[in-house]
């Protein structure tokens, strides 16, 4: 009896070890599906593509600005509603007059502080009339987009102009749709805890009345 047991037990153990080595049901870590990233999320095109030429399209035709404005004199500028160019919404802060930027007689140019024309292709000089610090930063490179090379001596460098990001009639940078956030599959869905203005030290008015935090 003892002899038989001492034979089949090691054989059973070895067989069981073999089954485990073959691993018929291996554990495979679950992987989340890759996040679908839209093509616009990696597109380096600037947010605006200004035409770059003084032209106006209406009813399928494209005109140069001076085609009309050389003949039709512009009336003195008042706060009246526009009858032409009604699609333009001027929301540029205190700057509510067309001729602050557009030249009064040569409509295919901008106007500088002395009434002289600024070429159409050089809008930063126009914007710099009021936005001095930003113009200075743009010239030095700390404001605005740069593409290409980090050193103009090592390759072509493209400095983007003001109007490639800002609409001159509505200058603040437009809000954009954010690209997908990090995948939190491993930790389960995460609820972003938005405590609202309670954590904002700038908005003391929105704080509920409570004791000052002790820490």
């Amino acid at each position, binding site marked *: 009896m003892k002899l038989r047991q001492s034979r089949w037990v090691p054989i059973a153990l070895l067989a069981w070890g073999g089954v485990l080595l073959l691993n018929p049901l291996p554990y495979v870590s679950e992987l989340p599906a890759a*996040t679908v990233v839209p093509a616009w999320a*990696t597109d380096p095109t600037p947010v605006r593509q200004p035409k770059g030429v003084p032209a106006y399209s209406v009813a399928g035709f494209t005109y140069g600005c001076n085609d009309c404005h050389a003949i039709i004199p512009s009336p003195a500028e008042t706060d009246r509603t526009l009858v032409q160019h009604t699609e333009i919404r001027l929301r540029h802060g205190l700057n509510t007059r067309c001729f602050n930027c557009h030249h009064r007689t040569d409509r295919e140019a901008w106007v500088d502080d002395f009434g002289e024309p600024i070429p159409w292709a050089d809008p930063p000089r126009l914007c710099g009339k009021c936005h001095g610090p930003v113009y200075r930063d743009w010239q030095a490179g700390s404001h605005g*987009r740069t593409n290409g090379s980090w*050193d103009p001596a090592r390759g072509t460098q493209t400095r983007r102009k003001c109007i490639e990001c800002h609409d001159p009639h509505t200058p603040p*940078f437009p809000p*954009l749709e954010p690209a997908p*956030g*990090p995948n939190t599959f491993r930790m389960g869905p995460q609820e972003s805890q938005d405590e609202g203005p309670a954590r904002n030290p700038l908005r003391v008015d929105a704080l509920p009345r409570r004791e000052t935090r002790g820490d």
Partner: protein
Amino acid sequence: MADASRQPVAPGTPPNPPDMSRRGFLAKGGVAVAGLSALAAAFSPLRHLAPEDLPSLEDFLQKHYKEMTPADKDRALARIRGQVRRRHRVEVRVTDPPPLDGVEFVYGLNISRCIGCRRCVHACVQENNLSRSPEIQYIRVLEMEKGSIDVESSDHHYASAQVPRPDKWYMPVQCHQCANPPCVKVCPVEATWQEPDGLVVIDYDWCIGCRYCEAACPYWARRFNFAEPQLPEGSINPNVSYLSNRPRPKGVMEKCTFCLHRTRVGRLPACLEVCPTGSRKFGNVLDPNSEVHYILKHKRVYVLKEDVGTLPRFFYYFDERGSRYAEPPGPARPQEAS
């Protein structure tokens, strides 16, 4: 049993006769089966290895990057090219651009202008052949309340329809390429080091995956390949380099290298090129005409976790009058529901 053990032992019998009882046999057998099972279970993943998972003799005998001769490097680059061809069926151009003389790279990020659109995150993933699943991203964009830098309560899962949200500001965090890098100090095998141009790089063939550097980094800039990186067909960037964006194997660390394969040949990093707001600035800080030199000289600069003494080469800076978001903030405006 106790009485039996006290009986005098007959001469000729061994002092401790083997325990042949049923109980003793089952106890030893149990231990044996547990040990065998554990051994078998431990070895069984080896059966799932594909031939290309096993290191070749050439892999095994490869020297540390810093000890390679130019001929060794050429062989290593050719080997990587072959590995990528076999594994991903893509022809890539493997380079090893050397650091440029008189160049120290520095990054500037204008937190007055960043709107948190996360385009940098995905441009980086595409450029650097990062794993899509499990997901690895070098850049993390933190959303915080305006007026405070409270990293602990920041949120990087924000998913509003549009950014920036009112009363929030955004702070992208990535590798700071520290001048005093804690990640380099802790590496037990010297698989990571600082290059002469300031970039902290990893030799993926030398890394043993101990993740000490991940624990040492105060910016959470290092990522670990827990699984075989998944790169979708046709999405591999063919311009790869040894120290930066070549496809990584499972079980090694990786990190942002300021797109070394681009920046060392004069191009700007991918995250900067895609930024729609122009918040990101990059250049040679030793060049007095560079953008980053101007920023460090004239702008108000913030260093994240300056107190830990890592001396980052990544600087956050501000504009004089703050940002011009489309919606001006003010206490009278109702809260945005998002």
